[in-house]
């Protein structure tokens, strides 16, 4: 019998699903080798189909997206029970990803803004989403919107992590092949090379021994030289602090690395390491001058923790009076 696999999405954009579809004809080969028994974005199966499986009947569940609602939590707990191997698929599932930047706010401030302050064509009437409502047709319920965004392994045990936003096709192929052939590495591994992007960067030969930067610039402010190390051009490129395995596609497109592949295994807090790498490049020694130049870096949290805020040491913005996670 062919091994059964499931794909599921939580708080994500759909790009990870796209990455699976982007395997193209190879997807048919995969479909020959495994039985896809659950994939809400592409195939018509219901939660009850998963519930009907025996525990451990799934060879693997690929889960993308971070965890923000009680529904997502319920589904990943179900998939954890049914699957022998759970793979956190993509930056959001591994580190929180872009949706994780919502940890700069809490549940209450998000709902207050979206349903109260956001400019709108309709007047705000103070309505808020309710978890339980009685309507003519009967009683309806909605999932709970949690107070924070969590990574997948902050909710369930995860066996493997596939990095990237979305994971590169090559890494997906390697992972699926290893799963089918039973050659997966040690549990807990990140299924990507464990070196920094700089070591695989086509522009490495042009990287100065010690790059130094007079001031940081953003891509729209300069004409970027397509052959020269981006750090040497003053761009904030997170290559020195980010895991390789993406094929440096952004660099090839003349854009700096934003860190979607996450940290290497020796790093605890990706953003902190990225800040450390960038700050030391600045030439300014005078405190006031250095502070002014660092002040030009727009949005330090969004720049250095773009994909990893929920997985960071701070996890979320500090709000002394924040409510705890709503009971689900």
């Amino acid at each position, binding site marked *: 019998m062919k091994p059964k696999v499931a794909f599921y999405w939580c708080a994500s954009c759909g790009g990870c699903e796209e990455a699976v579809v982007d395997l193209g004809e190879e997807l048919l080969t995969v479909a020959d080798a495994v039985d896809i028994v659950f994939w809400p974005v592409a195939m018509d199966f219901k939660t009850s189909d998963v519930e009907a499986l025996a525990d451990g009947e799934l060879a693997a569940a690929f889960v993308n997206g971070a965890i923000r609602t009680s529904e997502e939590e319920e589904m990943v707990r179900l998939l*954890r029970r049914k699957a022998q191997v759970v793979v956190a698929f993509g930056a959001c599932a591994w580190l929180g990803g872009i949706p994780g930047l919502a940890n*700069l706010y809490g549940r209450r401030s998000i709902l207050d803004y979206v349903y109260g302050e956001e400019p709108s064509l309709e007047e705000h009437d103070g309505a808020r989403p309710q978890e339980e409502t009685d309507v003519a047709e009967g009683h309806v319920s909605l999932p709970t919107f949690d107070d*924070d965004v*969590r990574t997948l*392994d*902050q*909710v*369930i*045990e995860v066996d493997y992590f596939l990095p990237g936003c979305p994971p590169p096709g090559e890494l997906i192929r390697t992972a699926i092949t290893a799963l089918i052939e039973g050659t997966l590495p040690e549990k807990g591994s990140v299924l990507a090379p464990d070196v920094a992007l700089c070591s695989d960067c086509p522009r490495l030969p042009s990287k100065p021994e010690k790059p130094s930067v007079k001031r940081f610039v953003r891509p729209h402010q300069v004409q970027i030289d397509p052959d020269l190390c981006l750090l040497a051009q003053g761009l904030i490129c997170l290559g020195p602090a980010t895991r390789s395995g993406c094929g440096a596609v952004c660099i090839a497109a003349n854009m700096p690395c934003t860190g979607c592949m996450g940290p290497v295994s020796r*790093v*605890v*807090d990706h*953003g*902190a*390491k990225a*800040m*450390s790498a*960038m*700050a*030391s490049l*600045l030439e*300014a*020694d005078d*405190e006031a001058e*250095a*502070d002014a130049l*660092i*002040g030009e*870096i727009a*949005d*330090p*949290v969004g720049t*250095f*923790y773009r994909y990893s805020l929920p997985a*960071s*040491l*701070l*996890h*979320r*913005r*500090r*709000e*002394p009076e*924040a409510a705890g*996670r709503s009971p689900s």
Partner: protein
Amino acid sequence: MSEPDETFEPRIVAFFCNWCTYTAADLAGISRMTYAPNVRVVRLMCSGRLDPQFVLAALRDGADGVLIGGCHPGDCHYQLGNYNAQRRVLLLKRMLRAMGIEDERVRLEWISAAEGEKVQRVCNEMTEQVRALGPLHLAAVPRREAS
């Protein structure tokens, strides 16, 4: 800010460089200077060794403030380490501000080996500043329940 809690004793983790500030702390001790016992000192070979992760890990694991001490500009034993520390701390503080953590909780000071009284003054000052701010109380990082 809430009323200062009389029973709150701030916990401050200090990272002092081997050549200047740590030596100054030694001098303060030898000179029988007394200062707030709230500061726990970790010795680094150079303030340039300060990884921003150290500061975040200290705050995560219960410190209410972090003090970093290095050689005066131009005096670094390794020539440039203190400038790197300064740039890292400046950037880190901007990030911390955006994350809702007050500026006064992280402080960088240049203290030479001869400035025992500056160790005393800075440790006392920072202890009182952090005491006035109150406990840091970071929200816990969620952990999955044991399966």
